């Protein structure tokens, strides 16, 4: 096993219990929305994006159609564009097939873990690190969704639902180091609280926080 793969697995493993928990919440939500356990798992295998899956399920629960499912899910997935842009430069040139696989595995977890790739790894080992971390997250996520689908909403401990946003915030801030990042997080949090009532308010908050961080960087 290469250094990169081993390091990636070790970096992602501590996060696995949290990922399983969030996956279980999403699996239970799918059952509540009327999907069978098999449908829930297949949906998770195809989309493999927690927030997009939740958005799609909420649209389904309200009786929405295919177009609404796609639109809601893609809005939630917009952040992957930024993740990829931030991550890609450190991974160097990657062959086509591996690039496609890494893109499929790119999640909040993989992005957060990959921000702490050891500096001594070569670009190829960095890509292995990211892929291994993504694979661990994938296994944990699908396992959680399967468990939640089987258990159903009644089998999920109440506070697990609150672990979803806490895990997202924790992953985002685990690598806070510079003043612009702190400014970005502070402004974003304030705006998210102030604009939360507005449709798409969280996207406006993120835009404001990014702009504030960019200005602080200058």
């Amino acid at each position, binding site marked *: 096993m290469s250094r990169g793969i081993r390091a990636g697995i070790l970096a992602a493993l*501590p996060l696995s219990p*949290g990922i399983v928990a969030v996956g279980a919440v999403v699996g239970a939500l799918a059952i509540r929305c009327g*999907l069978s356990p098999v449908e829930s798992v297949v949906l998770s295998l195809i989309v*493999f994006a927690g*927030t*997009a899956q939740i958005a*799609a399920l909420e649209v*389904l629960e309200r009786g929405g*159609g295919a177009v609404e499912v*796609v639109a*809601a*899910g893609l*809005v939630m*997935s917009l*952040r*992957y*564009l*930024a*993740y*990829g*842009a*931030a991550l890609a430069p450190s991974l160097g040139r*990657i062959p086509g097939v591996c*690039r496609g696989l*890494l*893109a*499929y595995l*790119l999640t*909040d977890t993989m*992005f957060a873990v990959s921000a702490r790739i050891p500096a001594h790894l070569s670009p190829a080992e960095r890509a292995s690190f990211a892929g291994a971390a993504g694979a661990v997250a994938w296994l944990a996520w699908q396992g959680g969704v399967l468990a939640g689908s089987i258990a159903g909403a009644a089998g*999920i401990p109440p*506070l697990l*639902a*609150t672990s979803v*946003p*806490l*895990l*997202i*915030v*924790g*992953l*985002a*801030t685990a*690598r806070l180091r510079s003043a612009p*990042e702190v400014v*970005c*997080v502070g402004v*974003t949090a304030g*705006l*998210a*609280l102030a604009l939360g009532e*507005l*449709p798409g308010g*969280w996207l406006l908050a*993120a835009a404001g*926080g*990014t702009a504030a*961080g*960019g200005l602080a*960087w200058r």
Partner: protein
Amino acid sequence: MSATLWVGVFALGLGTWALRGAAWLSVRPVCTTTGPPLGGLGSTALMVALGITLLRDDPVGVAGLVAAVGVVVLSAATGRVSLAVGLALGGLWGAGRAGWIDSAPTEPTSLPEAHGPAREPAR
């Protein structure tokens, strides 16, 4: 689910995959050659905004936001996200047992409405 909805699910999966992979195509040169590291700041801001908005609507109320502050401080100081989230959930559980917070959520948290009007938080 109907066949039409499955087509929608496949389209969502393909679209999400394309967004994830776009950086390895056209976005990368733009983000690596211009100004501040907006890709990193933007992704951090999106995650924080999503998390805070979810907590804002969470039935545990202000306690969830206090827990988030604890998670931020602990995560940033130690890099141990699982530990930070575990301690925060333990604190919320203890607060619930002590009767300091109204109630714990019984259903998965609702997402912020990026595509429609605000709704009542799930209970």
